[in-house]
């Protein structure tokens, strides 16, 4: 002993500090290192009797045999969940709340066991599972025990969806499970969850905790397996919703597979998140932020700050500091309490990272690794810094999902934003500056679901998390996350039949033949193809012609809509003023618009007048909301202000409904523009003139050109062009079931948000169904901005 102490006294090394894993090993041994499926509250053998191994990435050894769920098993699990569903849905919110609370308590009681098990299975450092993952898991269940309790008071009219299928990744196994299961149960759903093939253990222990907590059989079902097992869940007809966290590649497949199925979908996908450092940042703290951004969990983090953007004048200094800091990182046995980076999940992932690093070097990047010890065996990787790279390099665009940071410089604030947004992804961003004005200028301009000011990778159950662009859609956490697991449970207003006989209609005389053109960028333009379509009235009599738009017209309209992006930065009050002006001008043309409706639809005079009246009222409705549908300040657990801001989605393509040519048209474009989106609308071809007449109202109302663009033509064809357009951020489609399916399937080009009606008609006159909160939710996406404070 004496010589060692003396030696250490001189060297002052840290020495090994392994976390005791005996309890976890005992638990595994107690199960004979073999696990069945947790279905209907029972542990059942996989139908085909197949098992696979889960491997400890730190040493490559098998930890346990895990059941491989096949079709029969998935069917069985969904059936169990279905069977449990009515009871669980009908259970009082308080009772559900108590059960979630019990789960939270059990997670805390088993915190260390869960942490050790997670580290064994995943290879991430025990410090992270112990201090970050598991505490967040418990917090998630506590928070959602609260939402369960408040279901009736806070979410009036909403209820659970039924059976939800959930597929989670290997990078935060139990944390992702909690993000999925806690809100699902709180809202009254039952669950079939598949943990990642590589990391099933904590989910299985969680299943035991569900048993202990007295969660009714079938409410939570844990089915282990591989990608095919997941596919079976996604495609199962009795699943009401699919929630997936994982790669954008798989997210695309899921979007495509579920297109037209009416399954609700939330996808939390990849990222290449920017980490922006301005010259007036606390650089030493920014360096620690970088450590937490890209060397947290070996960089296997969807929101990892993997793209460092640093102001040119401080770049050398910051890079020097980063290198010094990297030289202090410790890579090794993840169970060691003094380790910063553990093992990479698998040999496959190791290879993927290696290939990208190689590519980065080949493309001219300068790779730097710190002179630190890396264990010779096990899936270990040194942290890596790339300099001398540009956006045109592969490693600056592709998600590496490893401990690799790429750094680039910018000159101005605007350039920082441009570089930050030069990506297909939009999950998160980190902004470092001591200038609050600058921070709050940059945060809304970065396309990302979460922006951390002077911080990074902050998570809390009370704040929503989720992406923009190809990082997916839907939010997890907070109030916004709860909506993903609920539906409005209101009686659907009946559809009114307004048709009257042709005999009773008035004829409006149009003395001069006028073929409305398209309306793009605030001007009337001839359709690119030079064709027009004949429009008939209900008895087959020609009313007139409209321009027949084609894909090029859509392209032009989308470009015009992008150019009108300044609309989003106008204040809500300014937008409201313009909407009121539109209402005023429509009101002045009340007769003209009524007559047009009668002419196109052969409805009664009173019905036509009513539609125009309702239209004016709807404009008032959204003008009123333009400065009122605002955000929240979430009560998260850190000392900070977490702003949940609804932001416009961007450029939205809209296929307008056939019924109510004026009110229907306005009901879809108004919420969009009230929230700051710009729109490319395809009017109904049954009665397009109400929309085309509307140009003149728009022109006289000071609405900036390009905010609303109208392209008449074949709805299905044009909707397809919009749905597959990669610079369109969302598509709303109110048409046929087939068209709905097509829009959802085509949206995978850029993972745009879609809202479709699956061919279901909607009562546009009824304020609930014609202008409910759903419209505003669909017109916005929540960005959470974390602003720590303290001086």
């Amino acid at each position, binding site marked *: 002993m004496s010589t060692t102490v003396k030696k250490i006294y001189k060297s002052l090394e840290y020495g090994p500090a392994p976390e005791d894993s005996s309890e976890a090993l005992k638990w595994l041994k107690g199960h004979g290192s073999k696990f069945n499926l947790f279905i209907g509250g029972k542990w059942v053998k996989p139908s085909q009797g197949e098992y696979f191994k889960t491997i400890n990435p730190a040493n490559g050894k098998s930890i346990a045999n895990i059941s491989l769920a096949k079709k029969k098993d998935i069917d069985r699990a969904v059936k169990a969940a279905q069977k449990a569903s009515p009871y669980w849905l009908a259970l009082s919110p308080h009772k559900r709340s108590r059960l979630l609370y019990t789960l939270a308590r059990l997670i805390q009681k088993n915190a260390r066991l869960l942490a050790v098990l997670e580290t064994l299975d995943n290879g991430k450092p025990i*410090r992270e599972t112990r201090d970050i993952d598991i505490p967040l898991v418990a917090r998630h269940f506590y928070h959602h025990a609260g939402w369960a309790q408040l279901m009736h008071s806070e979410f009036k009219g909403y209820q659970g969806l039924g059976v939800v299928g959930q597929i989670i990744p290997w990078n935060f196994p139990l944390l992702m499970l909690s993000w999925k299961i806690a809100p699902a149960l709180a809202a009254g759903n039952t669950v079939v969850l598949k943990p990642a093939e590589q990391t099933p253990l904590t989910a299985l222990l969680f299943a035991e905790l569900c048993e202990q907590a007295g969660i009714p059989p079938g409410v939570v079902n844990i089915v282990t397996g591989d990608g095919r097992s997941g596919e079976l869940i996604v495609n199962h007809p009795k699943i009401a919703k699919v929630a997936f966290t994982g790669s954008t590649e798989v997210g695309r497949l899921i979007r495509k597979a579920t297109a037209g199925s009416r399954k609700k979908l939330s996808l939390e996908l990849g990222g290449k998140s920017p980490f922006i450092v301005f010259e007036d940042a606390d650089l030493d703290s920014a360096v*620690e932020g970088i450590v937490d951004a890209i060397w947290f969990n070996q960089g296997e983090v969807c929101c990892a700050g993997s793209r460092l953007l640093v102001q040119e004048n401080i770049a050398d200094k910051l890079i020097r500091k980063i290198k010094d800091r990297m030289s202090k990182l410790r890579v090794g046995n993840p169970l060691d309490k003094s380790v910063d980076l553990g093992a990479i999940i698998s040999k496959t992932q190791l290879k993927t990272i290696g290939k990208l690093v190689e590519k980065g070097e080949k493309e001219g990047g300068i790779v730097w690794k710190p002179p630190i010890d890396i264990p010779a065996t096990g899936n270990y990787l040194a942290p890596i810094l790339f300099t001398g790279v540009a956006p045109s390099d592969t490693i600056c665009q592709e998600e590496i999902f490893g401990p690799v940071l790429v750094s680039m410089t910018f000159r101005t604030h605007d350039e920082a934003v441009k570089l930050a947004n030069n990506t297909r992804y939009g999950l998160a961003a980190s902004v470092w500056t001591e200038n609050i004005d600058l921070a709050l200028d940059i945060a809304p301009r970065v396309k990302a679901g979460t922006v951390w000011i002077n911080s990074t990778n902050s998570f809390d159950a009370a704040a929503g998390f989720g992406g923009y662009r190809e990082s997916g859609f839907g939010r997890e956490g907070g109030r916004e996350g709860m909506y993903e697991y609920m539906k409005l449970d209101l009686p659907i207003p009946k559809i009114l039949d307004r048709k009257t006989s042709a005999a009773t209609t008035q004829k409006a005389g149009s003395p001069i033949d006028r073929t409305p053109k398209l309306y793009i960028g605030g001007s009337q333009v001839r359709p690119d193809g030079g064709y027009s379509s004949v429009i008939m009235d209900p008895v087959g009599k020609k009313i007139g012609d409209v321009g027949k738009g084609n894909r090029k017209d859509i392209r032009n309209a989308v470009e015009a809509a992008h150019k009108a992006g300044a609309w989003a930065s106008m204040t809500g009050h300014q937008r409201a003023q313009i909407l009121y002006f539109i209402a005023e001008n429509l009101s002045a043309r009340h007769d003209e618009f009524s007559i047009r409706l009668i002419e196109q639809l052969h409805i009664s005079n009173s019905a036509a007048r009513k539609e125009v009246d309702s239209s004016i009222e709807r404009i008032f409705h959204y003008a009123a909301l333009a400065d009122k549908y605002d955000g929240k300040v979430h009560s998260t657990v850190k000392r900070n202000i977490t702003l949940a801001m609804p932001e416009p989605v961007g450029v939205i393509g809209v296929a307008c409904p056939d019924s109510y040519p004026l009110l229907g048209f306005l009901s879809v474009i108004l919420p969009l523009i009230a929230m700051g989106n710009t729109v490319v609308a395809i009017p109904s071809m049954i009665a397009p003139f109400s929309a085309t007449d509307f140009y003149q109202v728009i022109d006289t109302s000071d609405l900036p050109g390009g905010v609303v663009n109208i392209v008449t033509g074949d709805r299905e064809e044009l909707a397809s062009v919009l749905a597959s357009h990669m610079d369109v951020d969302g598509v709303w489609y109110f048409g046929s079931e087939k068209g709905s399916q097509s829009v959802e399937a085509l949206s995978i080009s850029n993972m745009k948000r879609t809202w479709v009606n699956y061919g279901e008609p909607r009562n546009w006159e009824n304020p609930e169904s014609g202008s409910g909160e759903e419209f505003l939710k669909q017109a916005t996406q929540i960005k959470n901005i974390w602003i*720590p404070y303290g001086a």
Partner: protein
Amino acid sequence: MVRKSALRNSGIPFDSSILEDRWVNKSAVERRAGTLGKRRSVKKEYQAAWLLRAVTMIDLTTLSGDDTEGNVIRLCAKAKKPVRSDILEQMGFDSLTVGAVCVYHNRISTAVEALNGTGIPVAAVSTGFPAGQIAHRDKLAEIKKSVRAGANEIDIVISRDKVLRGNWRGLYDEICAFREACGESHLKTILATGELGNLENVIRASWVCMMGGADFIKTSTGKESVNATLPVSLVMVRAIREYLEMTGFRVGFKPAGGIRTARQALDWMILMKEEVGDEWLSAELFRFGASGLLGDIERQLEHFATGNYSAIHRHPMA
């Protein structure tokens, strides 16, 4: 450990632009400070070795109105033998001494005499410690008297009013004058960070003290309501690191006040090791200003040596 100890910080000309370019984010600093001790763990023989090293970096201190010759002599005796010899022997050490003994001016001669021949330096608090609310010329006179009385280190308090009023040039001049008055004795500047209002002031005051030629920058007197904290220390240590990069001078660091447990001592040592490196884990560049810390370290060391938890009365008191 290779260190050019000859390279004592001689200070640099006052440069206000350096002060303007200092940014510090409190929340981020607190996050780092909060995770430092959780990212690293020192256990068993490593912990024992680290704690022995900690002992050698303690400025064993008594700064009370009722200090007499008697208790200062007792303190010096403890400084010479801070850890029970049987425990030391078990770990292969013959002897070990603390970093210094720290007293008021009036008690310097007693301490110098008691420590004669041990090589343990005597540190004296000075310049109207702890408040520093006396005339500048009296401060200089006090330093000179203490140096003449045999103090090897002078722990001065900076004029907080100069910080709070942004008179950085004035503070710089003050430190330069103190440094000159110290002569060969080392200058330790106490920032009294608990009274500076914010971290920006802490970082700027650290820089001004270093520019003025401080050998050590020290957090607190131990008499403020908030004394040494990890976040404040982190800010000061990062300033030391950057000063080294800019000038090549190594400035020491002394957290003082509120460090009472072995666990805390390890946290500070981890901070030094991670932020500035092993060089700052020796008495030449690092001190704990503490009176109660040693007792807890002794107990932990006995626990390591015997495997049983220890009691404070089993260790000779100071």
